[in-house]
């Protein structure tokens, strides 16, 4: 199977969906002639032209709102945010309009929009460009939230997100865009709401989403090699809908869980996961559920210090050793 970058996997998914459905178009800052600030849309404007790949001025509230309105009329906009951090000027459009319009109309409308872009720290761009809003967007009933960790997942989930009839917030990671994975060329779809066990194990469940999944896989290798601990790694892939069954199945098998995310701890995604585990698998647990999150401060600019803010394999291992 060919190796493909996370970036190209996304691009292939976008291209396939543009070809698959006349109503799909891409809109965002620098997505067309500039080929995308992170080159996710590189070549798509050349291939598909002005109608399907649209450069927007710097007006996130304006063009996200436009896309919500257009989706109510049956189009399937895929809006790129150069950073998810920029969504914050468009929250009214995302939460009040995309998130609530179906409910407030008693089901008379729906909003098949995808909003995508990177949502991660770790690139020394300061606090305003390093936000990870998956937890608070998943707090909005009406929105769906997806955080792929690999190129394979990014492609399959993106295609599903575009075909989904609800608004999907698709969160990528600039640190992963250049990483390669095996990705089939033939079409495949990954359903939302299905987690993936990325590594089978017996002693502890490491439950994560996004780039933290890769951190967990690295930690699992070290735990196996140096501590004789066999860790299972569960990749949530989609935050809402959430594959609760896979989480509980893993915890019931290993009896221990460490939850890992690059989100902040307070009301982070893992706070919800911890709540579900203690409620539904309490008797299966042999130890408290522990969490590893980003350090609870705004993103530090200074490169060596910012690195310390994000969970690394050692932080995960330290937590695992407390309960194993």
């Amino acid at each position, binding site marked *: 199977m060919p190796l493909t970058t996370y970036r190209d996997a996304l691009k292939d998914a976008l291209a396939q969906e543009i070809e698959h459905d006349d109503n799909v*178009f891409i809109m965002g800052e620098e997505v067309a002639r500039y080929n995308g600030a992170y080159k996710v849309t590189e070549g798509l404007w050349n291939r598909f032209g002005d*109608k399907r790949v649209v450069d*927007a*001025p710097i*007006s996130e*509230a*304006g*063009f*996200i*709102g*436009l*896309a*919500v*309105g*257009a*989706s*109510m*009329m*049956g*189009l399937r906009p895929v809006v790129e945010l150069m950073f998810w951090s920029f969504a914050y*000027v468009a929250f*009214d*459009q995302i939460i*009040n*309009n995309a998130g609530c*319009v*179906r*409910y*407030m*109309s*008693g*089901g*008379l*409308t*729906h909003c*098949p929009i995808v909003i995508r872009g990177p949502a991660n720290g770790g690139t020394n761009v300061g606090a305003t460009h390093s936000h990870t809003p998956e937890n608070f967007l998943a707090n909005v*009933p*009406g929105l*769906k939230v997806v955080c792929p960790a690999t190129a394979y997942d990014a492609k399959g989930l993106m295609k*599903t997100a575009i075909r*989904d*009839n*609800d608004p999907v917030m698709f969160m990528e990671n600039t640190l992963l865009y250049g990483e390669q994975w095996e990705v089939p060329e033939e079409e495949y779809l990954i*359903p*939302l*709401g*299905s987690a993936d066990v990325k590594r089978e194990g017996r002693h502890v469940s490491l439950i994560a989403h996004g780039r933290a999944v890769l951190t967990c896989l690295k930690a699992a290798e070290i735990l196996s090699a140096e501590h004789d601990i066999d860790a299972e790694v569960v990749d949530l892939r*989609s935050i*809402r*809908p*959430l*594959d*609760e069954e896979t989480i509980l199945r893993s915890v019931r098998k290993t009896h221990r869980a460490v939850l890992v995310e690059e989100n902040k701890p307070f009301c982070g995604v893992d706070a*919800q996961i911890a709540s579900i585990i203690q*409620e539904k698998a309490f008797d299966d647990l042999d130890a408290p559920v522990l969490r590893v999150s980003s350090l609870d401060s705004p993103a530090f600019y200074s490169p060596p210090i910012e690195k310390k803010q994000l969970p690394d394999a050692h932080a995960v291992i330290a937590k695992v050793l407390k309960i194993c």
Partner: protein
Amino acid sequence: MANGTVAETTAFAEVPVNQALTPEQKIEFLREMYRIRRFEQVSMKYYQQGKMGGFLHLYTGQEAVAVGTISLLAENDHVITAYRDHGHALAVGMSMEECMAELFGKATGCSKGKGGSMHFFAPDKNYWGGHGIVGGQTPLGLGIAYALKYKGIKGCCLCYLGDGAVNQGPFHEALNLASLWSLPVIYIIENNQYSMGTSLDRSSAFSKCLAARAEGYAMDWDLINGEDLYEIRAKTQIAVERAHTSCRPSILEIDTYRYTGHSVADANAKKYRPPEEIERYQTLHDPLRLWKQRLIHEGLLDEATADKLDHQAREEADSAAHFADESPYPSEKEIFSDIYWEVDNNTESGRRGRHFFND
């Protein structure tokens, strides 16, 4: 408010779009305005009796704006507005019953009791709400116009907003995009002179009028006297034509006045403006009274017929309130429907994973 001279108003009556009106159509406009006014008056009565929750923003005084502008629309033209949305809803053809039932929070409401006063919807009538956040609907209206152009459909979107919404950032983003991308959207500023309790001169900086801000975006604009249906139709038609034939946006500012407070719960409704001002508008500038006089003057109507129309509107509103009062409340199981399309339609996607997070 502009006071058109007799010569001016006659000129508006004689433009082709008004010349083409039949007597029946002209009388129908009066009927529609009576229906809106009586609907609002009856809804206020029941609001004060505690039959409704939340807010109730009444359209009384502004009726000619919705009736006049919407009267011009054809099959592929669309409407979206803000929270003072009852008048537009009735003007696009929604029934008083479904609207009143929505106010009462009943299952028979247009939005099944989930939206309330600020969120009336009827996509089958090209009516896209009813939006509660000031200015939040302005990019949505742009998107509706974008979709029309994308699909190659000759149509336009009338996107209404109040004078208080013109200072919201997304409105300006929408104006820039509308002109930059040549989209068939018509922004209609219903200038009732108060954004809640703040008068126009305390909220907005402008040179000629609010609509003239369009010049900064290389967009056409016009200023309209909202007490004259002929003028509303004459000038709005130019913008609709522009959207249909040149795919260009416009801003129309329609001077109007609301007789009640910002909402029925507006405790200061009579403090931030003198009572004489309200009285002056009701006496001299009331769009219903003026249109009625116009039709009498044209020999199309007499007082008795007008009273009958008014009486019928009142009866219809009373009957709608009775319907709403008698209707059942939504069942509790409705809480978890209409959130996700995929769940509602029981698709494979809707069945997979957990969508809701209570016990």
